[in-house]
Every structure is written in C-alpha cells, then in structure tokens.
C-alpha cells in the first residue's frame, strides 16, 4: 500500500505542479501582452498581483471561501458567498473589488499584510472593467484525464511468438478461444515497458481456474464432478462453453447484485434510533433479475434513477426506483421532516456522483470542491433533480410525538406456488420514487445549512462535464422522453445524461469497478475517486479500451465480464514467485492471476455449497439464518425480533439475508461487510482472529461442517477413506489434494475417530440429532466433523485462488 500511495501522491504533486505552472505560464511575459487595451498589462500587472497577494489562499489546494484564482473561468464560478468573484465589465458590482476595498479590516482582503495600494486596486478595477481578459492558455485546456471522453486506443500488436497459446493477430471486435484478447495485449505492453522485468505467469491449473471463474461469475464453487470433467478436457473451447453457461446462470445475478447493493446502500431497515423494517426487497430482486437478463447498463441506470418518469412506466420500472429510496430515514421524536428529506436528497446526490461519475460531491454540499472542478452550485443544481420528492417522515398530528416513515410505496401482488396446482396471492409493498406535481424551488444552502438558503438554482449538470443536451442521443426501447419547452430538467434527463456516451466518466468508472472485483484492485485504485486526488490508472489505455468496448456493445455487463474471464491475464496462475513479491507485491502489473479472500457472502455461500445444505431458492423476502442471541437488542420503539428461519431459508444465499443497519449479520460484519447506511464503493479486506473464530465456532459454520460430514458419508458410502477424503477436499478446494495433504487428513481422521471411540459421550454431545447418520458409528461421524471443520477453515477455501 505504501508504495501505491506513494505513487499517487507523486502524481498528485505533479498534477498540482502542472496546474500551477499553467497559472504561472499564463502570467509570464512570454504569453500575450497585447490582450489588454490602454496601459494595462495582465502579464506584468494583474498576474503578479494575483500571484503575490491572492494565490496563497486561493489556489487549488487552499481554495478559501471556495474561491480559486487559476483561470478566468474560476473567477466566474459561484463561491461560498453565493456570488462570483467578479462581474466582467463591472468592477463596482465585483465582489473582489468590494473585498479589497472594504474599510472593515475583518472584511478586507487580503487578510494579512498591508492592504492593496490604490494603484493596485486601480489595476484590478481597470482589468475587470475591460472584461477581465485572461491569456489564452486558460487552465480548462489542461483537463484532468478522467474528464476527457475516452477514445478507443489502438490495441498493441504482440508478436506471434510472444502471445501465449499461439494466438493470431489481435482482433478487437471478436473474442474467440485461442485468439488474442486485447486485454492481454495492453497488459503485456505495460509489463514489457516496466523496469520490473517480470514476465507473465503460465496458465492456472484447471481445477483452480474453474473454481476461480465459478466464484467470480456465480459466487458458487463447481461440483467435484464438474471439476473432474474439466480436468479431463481443459481446452479453451471447453472453458469458453463453461463461461457462457455461467453467464447464463440465474446465480450470476445473485453474485453480482452484492457489489451493486453495497453501492445502492440497500438494507431492510431504516437506520437510526427507530431502526424498523422497511419493505424494499423487490428492488433487490429487480437488481438480480436485471443482471441476469444482462439489461444494458444505460437502461439499468435510467430505470433506477427515473423509472417512474418513463412514458408508460411499468411496474418493474417503478420497482427499480427503489434504488434511491434505500437512503436511511430518521423518525426519532422531534426530527424535522424537512431536514431528514434534505439529508436524503444530499445522499442521493453524493451516491449518484460516486457511482456514475467516480466523483466525490460531499464537500461541495458546504463549499466549492477544493481540488476538483465542482462547485457548491453544481451540487445544488444536481440536488434540484432530486428535490421534487415528498417528505418521507410524517410528523405526528395534534401535538403528539410519534413520527412515522411515510415515503411512497408501490403495492405488489405475487403469485406463489404453495402446492401442486394451488397458488396463493401475496401482497407486499416496495418503496419507490415519485415526483410531486408541484416543483420545489432549490437554493444553495450556505455552508450546507438547510435553514440558510442562498441563491436559487435550477436542475443542471456540472459545467466541467458534457452538456445536458447530449442525453437526447440515448435511445431506449422504452422511448424518449421529450421535455416540454421551457420546462425544467427532470431526473430522467439526468439519468440519460449520466449514461450519455459523451460522459467521460461513467464507462471508465463502471468497468473499473468490475475489474476490481475480478483482480482485487481497480485499474484506478481509488474506485470512488476519479478526480485529481484519485490515483492514476495503472493501465490507462486498457481502461479506455474497456470503457469504449463497453459502450459500443450496448453497455453489456456480461460482454465485459466475458472478455475479462476469457483473457490470458485472468487465467494466469496466481502462485507468486519471490521475484514477483519483491518487485510487485500488489500485482499492479498483472504478471500473475488474482488471489484474494472471498467476500463475506461468498465465504458463506461457498461453505453452504460444500456442505450440501445450500438452498438455491431465489428471490423473495429476506431470510434469517442462525445468529447468536442478543445481536438485535437495540434501543428504539417496536424493535423487530430476530426469528431464525427454521426451514431451508436458513441455508439460502447471503444476498437474501436480512440486513438490519444497526446490527447486520455478525459473521458478515466480521468479514468486512459494511452497515449499508451509506454508499460503499469498495470493502476493505481484513485478516483477523475474529474471522478464524467465526469459521471455527459460529454455529452456522459448525452446522455446515456437520452437513458436509453427513454428505460425504451419504454420497460416498462405498468409497475408500482416501477417496472420501479426496471428495471432501475437492468440495472445498476443487483441486485434487497433494499426497502429503491426503496423508495428513487421513491420519487426523483416524486419530480423531480413535479418540471419540475412547470417549463416546463427547461424540454424542457433539453431533446434533438432526445430522446423525444411524448407519455410521458416532465416533466416525465426529471424526469427519473435525476433518470438515478443518477444510472449511483453510485459507484456500475462503480465497479465490
């Protein structure tokens, strides 16, 4: 980490230096001197004055009061005061002049040192009265890489003999087994140009590769039978066929929804003191199904941001808008419903900016962004898009104190098969967005205080990015939304703007997020920040190529995922050599395959699959797997009770586990799951003793070890001990055990069996009745429990290898 942080800091410093040098260059005598009429000269008079008396507090790192003085456009931005620094042509109205001439020393600029002299003030006056001309090399010309629309870069050619597997020349449009994949060309080029002199690793062994691609695409491991079949024929064609099957599997959406729901801060409760349940799981199901259908990402975006505003919007379109109803909601006594609403809208702005723009807008709620070209005005112009939603807290009537959650919900009716031939209709609701008929006016909130409204603004997108009009180029099957003339822009316009192919950020940010899920770190390390403070991409051309490829292939998520898992880069062995560890410990150069711990949910799903207990039932209301007593003892009225599922629901996948914000499922928290109270672009990946205790002793994992032991004895009644052990090993690690591993496990099994034979009461206490197998001695079952407990705890089992 230190190294990469170092890198990004360096980049940061040089970016700042570049900015400064532009500012300096533009004020240098070599720039134009004929810009300003009369006897006024920018280069020799205005520039040096700004530099010596203003920039100390108003450059891009300090930016006091939101004001930055590095370009003419900076001077025109609205600052924290609610006005711009100057009005070109009118020095009297220019705040800059008012401040440098103020008689009150607290008001007067600059705050330190002598006041400006009358001559200096006159220079500024004249300059503003002349329209405040600035030399041509305005800073906007030096745009941060992420704000330029990505162009498809040329795919580097790799010579026949270098390309692995005897590939032919790159064909960027078609990815076929054995053909050069552009990902590999870019990765190879970076690797070759690096002074590290590392070479790519060979192909991963078939069992590990198969397990890797299963866990990555569907979040479940392959069965031992599937592994053995692939080992028998590990051809690229076979692999490609499996990839296609996995992409078509309904489990694909269950796996990939998790990343999206972290971003969407999806949970089943409201958060805060009265952390009661809300019904919004139909939105979670919508995400799973949309991913399974490979709904184009632009359409997915539009439905989630503004599905309710689509012409003839369907029930599904409206369920999708649950996305922005996932915000927390405070109904504690005395809460100001308007303040709660303002906080929710602000959360919608920052979440939208994080997910689709890789941009941090939070700071702009109170003041202009200090580093990136986003102003407080931009924040509230985005705020205006979301500002026409109703209050979500209902104040008590008649002086009471009981506040209630009151946001709009959609009634749903589901048909469920209860027995052969009979079905029941279930009624449920889901939280959705609606637009109020009368628009609220939106104001900049000075210092972010909702009780302190400043200038009024209307819905508009940030100036530094592509124009809002560009959204009309998006054509959706749902039909285009047409603005009535003079109408204000709506959420639907914003949604289309977000997924415009002119948006320089959206595709890069999105493919980078997926890349990080496959490889453990993004091409841009700071997934949440593509601004000037974010880290520079390790493979900029690859990032842009993927971004363009994504947009030009109908925004297909599965297309990009397929591309990634088909690459040689992805299929490399993840084993690490000393040289690789020394030169590139974080695998930035991708000279080996990915190897990192699985997510909390996947660790559980994987163990459930190995144990044979997994229920593959999809969708529906949240489920309650076993958790210790007292986790939900929480202050607050009508606190919901945790009623552990007693049927197969306790063995359903993690994506369906109830998410209560004040106390999420404890083993998920231990494995770094967030509380889902705010948008989380990437989880940390820790390695702690609490994780060991969880896998060893959490009754849920103990139950899985019993399930796995029972399964082995049932599935393989005739097998030899070694064959059973190999089967068990393959259930958790997929690969064939090494002889040494097999020997160790066999001796553990025999020794434990002997010990339990000597103290049969231990075995009787240990094995729960529901897992007893009457045909097998208890001591043997107990010994198998030990083996399975070991296997479910292996680093390899909880790691994508």
């Amino acid at each position, binding site marked *: *980490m*230190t190294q990469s*942080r170092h890198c990004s800091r360096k980049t940061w410093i040089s970016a700042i230096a570049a900015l400064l040098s532009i500012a300096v260059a533009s004020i240098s005598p070599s720039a134009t001197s004929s810009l300003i009429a009369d006897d006024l000269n920018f280069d020799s008079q205005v520039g040096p004055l700004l530099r010596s008396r203003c920039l100390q507090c108003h450059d891009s790192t300090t930016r006091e009061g939101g004001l930055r003085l590095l370009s003419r456009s900076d001077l025109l931005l609205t600052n924290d005061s609610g006005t711009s620094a100057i009005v070109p042509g009118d020095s009297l109205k220019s705040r800059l002049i008012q401040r440098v001439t103020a008689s009150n020393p607290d008001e007067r600029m600059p705050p330190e040192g002598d006041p400006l002299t009358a001559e200096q003030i006159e220079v500024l006056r004249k300059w503003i009265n002349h329209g405040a001309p600035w030399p041509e090399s305005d800073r906007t010309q030096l745009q941060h890489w992420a704000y330029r629309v990505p162009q498809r870069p040329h795919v580097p050619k790799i010579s026949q003999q270098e390309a692995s597997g005897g590939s032919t020349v790159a064909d960027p449009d078609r990815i076929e087994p054995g053909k050069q994949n552009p990902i590999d060309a870019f990765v190879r080029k970076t690797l070759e140009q690096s002074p590290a002199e590392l070479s790519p690793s060979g192909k991963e062994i078939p069992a590990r590769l198969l397990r890797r691609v299963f866990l990555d695409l569907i979040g479940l491991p392959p069965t031992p039978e599937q592994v053995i079949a692939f080992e028998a024929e590990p051809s690229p064609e076979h692999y490609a066929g499996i990839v296609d099957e996995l992409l078509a599997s309904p489990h694909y959406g269950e796996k990939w929804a998790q990343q999206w729901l972290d971003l969407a801060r999806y949970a089943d409760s409201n958060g*805060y*003191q*009265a*952390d009661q349940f809300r019904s919004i799981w139909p939105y979670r199901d919508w995400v799973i199904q949309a991913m399974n259908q490979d709904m184009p990402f632009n359409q997915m975006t539009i439905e989630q941001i503004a599905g309710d505003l689509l012409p003839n919007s369907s029930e599904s379109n409206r369920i999708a808008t649950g996305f922005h109803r996932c915000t927390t909601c*405070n109904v*504690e*006594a*005395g*809460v100001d419903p308007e303040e709660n609403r303002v906080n929710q809208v602000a959360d919608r702005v920052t979440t939208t900016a994080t997910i689709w723009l890789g941009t941090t807008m939070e*700071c702009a709620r109170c003041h202009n962004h200090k*580093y990136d070209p986003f102003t407080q005005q931009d924040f509230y112009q985005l705020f205006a898009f979301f500002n026409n939603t109703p209050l979500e807290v209902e104040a008590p009537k008649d002086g009471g*104190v009981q506040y209630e959650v009151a946001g709009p919900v959609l009634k749903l009716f589901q048909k469920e098969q209860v027995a052969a031939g009979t079905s029941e209709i279930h009624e449920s609701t889901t939280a959705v967005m609606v637009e109020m008929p009368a628009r609220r006016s939106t104001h900049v909130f000075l210092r972010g205080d909702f009780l302190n409204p400043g200038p009024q603004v209307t819905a508009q997108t940030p100036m530094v990015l592509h124009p809002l009009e560009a959204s009309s180029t998006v054509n959706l099957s749902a039909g285009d939304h047409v603005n009535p003339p003079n109408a204000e822009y709506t959420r639907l316009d914003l949604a289309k703007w977000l997924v415009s192919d002119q948006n320089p950020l959206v595709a890069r940010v999105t493919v980078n997020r997926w890349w990080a899920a496959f490889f453990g*770190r993004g091409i841009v390390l*700071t*997934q949440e920040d593509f601004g*000037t403070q974010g880290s520079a991409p390790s493979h900029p051309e690859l990032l842009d190529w993927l971004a363009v490829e994504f947009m030009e292939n109908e925004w297909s998520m599965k297309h990009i995922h397929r591309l990634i898992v088909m690459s040689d880069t992805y299929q490399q062995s993840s*084993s*690490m050599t000393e040289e690789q*560890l020394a030169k590139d*410990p974080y695998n930035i150069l991708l000279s080996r395959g990915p*190897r*990192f711990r699985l997510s909390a949910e996947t660790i559980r799903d994987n163990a459930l699959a190995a144990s044979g207990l997994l229920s593959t039932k999809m969708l529906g209301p949240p489920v309650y797997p076993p958790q210790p007593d*007292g986790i939900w003892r*929480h*202050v*607050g009225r009508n606190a919901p009770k945790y009623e552990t599922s007693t049927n197969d629901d306790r063995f359903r996948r993690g994506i369906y586990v109830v998410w209560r*914000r*004040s*106390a999420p499922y404890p083993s998920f928290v231990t494995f770094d799951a967030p*509380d889902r*109270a*705010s948008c989380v672009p990437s989880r*940390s*990946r*820790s*390695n*702690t*003793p609490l*994780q*060991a*205790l*969880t896998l*060893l*002793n959490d009754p849920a994992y*103990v139950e899985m070890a019993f399930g796995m032991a029972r399964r082995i004895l049932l599935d393989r009644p005739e097998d030899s001990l070694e064959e059973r052990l190999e089967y068990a090993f393959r259930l958790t690690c997929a690969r064939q055990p090494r002889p*040494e591993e097999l020997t160790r496990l066999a001796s*553990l099994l025999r020794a*434990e069996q002997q010990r339990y034979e000597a103290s049969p009461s*231990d075995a*009787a206490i*240990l094995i729960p009745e529901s897992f007893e197998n009457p045909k097998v001695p208890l001591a043997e079952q107990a010994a198998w429990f*030990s083996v399975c*407990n*070991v296997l479910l*705890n292996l680093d*390899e089992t909880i790691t994508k*290898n």
Partner: protein
Amino acid sequence: MTDTASAMQLLNRRSLLSRGSVGLGSAALASMLQSQTRGSTLADPASRLSNKQTGENRPHHPCKAKSVIFVHLVGAPSHLDLFDYKPVLQRLDGQLMPDDLWKGLRLAFIRKQPALLGTRFRFRQHGDSGLELSELLPSLGQMADELCVIKSLHTEHFNHAPAQLFLQSGFGQFGRPSMGAWVHYGLGSENRNLPGFVVLITGDIAGAGNSLWGSGFLPSVHQGVEFRSSGDPVLFLSNPDGLSTDARKRIIDEITQLNSIQLADVGDPEIATRIQQYELAWRMQSAVPELMSIDHEPEHIHRMYGTAPGKPSFANNCLLARRLVERGVRFVQLYDEGWDHHSGVFGGLRAKCKQVDQPLAALLLDLKQRGLLEETLVVWGSEFGRTPMLQDGENSGRESDRVGRDHHKEAFAVWMAGGGIKPGTVYGKTDEIGFHIVENPMHVNDFHATILHLLGIQHDELTFQFQGRPYRLTDIGGKVIAPIVG
C-alpha cells in the same frame, strides 16, 4: 516436511517485508492482530501518525494518556440534576418559560409553552477543589479532586442517533470512523492477545447501533469488538459443545499445517498472516475468558466496585475496563443505556446513578492505586443534555413524579479524569438556568481534539485519505482546550 520449512521461511520473510525493521516486537504483533490484507484499496498506513521512518505508531508529542475508558451514558443524563446547580432555576421553578426564550428551539417532545423545572436534589461541594455535585453522586464526590468537569459542551444534533454518532464519530450521519477506531488506527494496541478497541454494553444497544464503534472508511480492523456480558464474551469464542479444548487445538494445528503447505506452494504472504490469525484466535480463546473472569479478584475489589461475578452489571464492566487497560488495550468504550428521562427524571436518575456512582468512583480509585490513572483517560459523556424546562407528556402536573426533561443540545456537562487532564477543575459556564453557555463554550470537535491531544495526537494530523481528501475526527474544526490540560 521441506515444504513446511520453506513456508515458515516465507512466513518470516513476510514479517520482514511488511513490517520493516520493527521485527516481531510487541508492536509488530499488535499490528498483526489487526493485519490488513494487501488487496484492500483502503489501507493507508502512510497517513497515520507520521513516524514514517520507523513504521512505528508513536505519538506526535509527549503525553501521559496511553489508553481511554470512555463511558457513554446512553440517552443523555440531566446535567442540571447532576453537575450544574442553578439557584435561579430553583427560584423560577414552576414559572412558564417566556416564549421568546424557547420558541424556535428544536425540541424532541415539548410542544406547548413549558414551565421551568428546578432540581429536586441537593448539591454540595467536595474535596479540596470544592467541586459541586449532586447528592446522587456521593461516591464520585469522594474522587472530586480527580475530576475535570466541563459544563459547556454543546453539540449539533438533538435526536439520539445522530447526536450519538456526532459524539462518537464527529459526524451526525453514518459512515465515519468512531473515535476509538481513529485512536486505534493512530496508535495501535499494546496487547497481542486482545483486540485494541473493546466495547462493553449494559442494557440495550444505543440507537445508532454498531456504527458507534464502527470503522467507517478506515480499514475494518480498527472497529471496536464487543465483549458481551452474556453468552460468548466475544462472538464465537467458545467451541461447540462436545468439542474439547484439545480437539480444538488439534484442528487448529491441522489447519496451520495445511495452510503452510499451501503457502509453500503458492507463496502468498497473506497465508502466513492467516496462519498467525489462527494462532491468535487460539490464544484469545484463553485470554478473553481469563480477562472476563472476575471471580479471582479479591473481595475488597468486589466490595469497592459493587461487582458480583456472573451477574452482568455496569459495575462489572467498570472492573473489566480496568482489567483491559491494565493489559494494554488502547480504547475501552462503556455504553450504559437508560438515561433518556422524558418522564420520571428524578426517580430515573436516582435509580441510574445508584448503578453507576459507586463503580465509577471505584474505577478511578482502583486506577489511581495501581498507578494507572495517570496514563488512563476516563471520560463521562453523553450525546447531549436535558432542558431546564419541564416535559410533562402525561399532563400529570408539575408536582408529579412523572415529569421529565427533553433533549437539549445547547449546553451539557461531561467530565474527564486522569490521563493528563487538570484535576479538580471546572471548565465553562452556563447561564442562570443552565440553558445556554455564557463562558468558554466547547464544541464536540474541541472535545475530540482535546482527547486526542491527551493521547499525544495532533487532531489535525491524524488523517485518512478517502474520496480524494484527507478526513479527520474533528472534520474541519476542533481546537485543543489548553486550560484543562495538566
């Protein structure tokens, strides 16, 4: 066994690789307890305390406090009935509050013109310092000369959950690291067998939930670990019924052996870390029960705290807090629920104080007798205070025992003791009815800055880069309140 031997070699190399020249000293082991994997995009050791040359976490400046015991009285006790005596309020008891004084103030429950409510408790001065305390805190009175009472803390939120988050994380919404996580991130821990940030709870969990000891955007290794007073003290600490300690040891040994084979094969240093985590888990399985078992404490200690082994109580948690800091745990957070006295404020306070007064005084005395008070900062805090106005939700009348006080964010009292604080002092002053601050206001950011200062941390230097900017506990505010630093 050559595989395993070379795995162990790698393991050692891993130690060197990741921890520079520090080697396997206690600091390094402590950091292993919190080891962060390489894959994370969030870990940023470079921005914690600035001892980049050594890689060690050392304070910014010399300091006395090494650890913190932060007692959060959940629900917010009334400062007016415990710490801030107001004779004028007594005189005005029962009179209606003029509208211009209360209208426009954000109140949780009071809706109609309220009457003022004086305290029903006697106050008296204690010790050489003459510190004035309510009769509800007689034992604490005996430790008065150790206390620094701050009567002018103010906050920005008047609902429990946001105000709790604000007190604990400096931000009124979810998503920021808690104070304990910040301190742990900055200073690490000195115990190799226990987590460095431990949470002990009596009663229900506070309204803002687990986020109060969460790590926010800091690596999750810095989050607080709850030690529970019933069931497993740490979740999943005990083995399944029927699985003996020996059987558990054999299983862990086997996991270690197989992990070592894998380490030798694929060479990922993360596996070496995993192996160490299992060893730590094994040690925790004995260290935590040893810590939690207060049976062996001598009788006079039990008498002093009022503890009864096996019976969960606030007193037990105070004793456990001492045992934790004694073992080098950096940050111990006690939550005690039940102080939200919208009604029955006098009876309620009497009952709650009875539970906490003696054990807290005992904690201070015990720490002092062991020479630990100097290096342990003990803090009494709450999310806000209570109104000098009466809340009478049941219209039972002013004389009734059912009257209460509403939430009040403008001014409230907290205290600190030990850890380099100036003892026997009072800081700040409220007006004649304890309503608004008239002297030396202290914002929650200042409170945090001062606590960090006492731990040797410059609050504006303890930062974490997230979403493109350096974040800190004190956000963009905070100043150290020098007059209370000893």
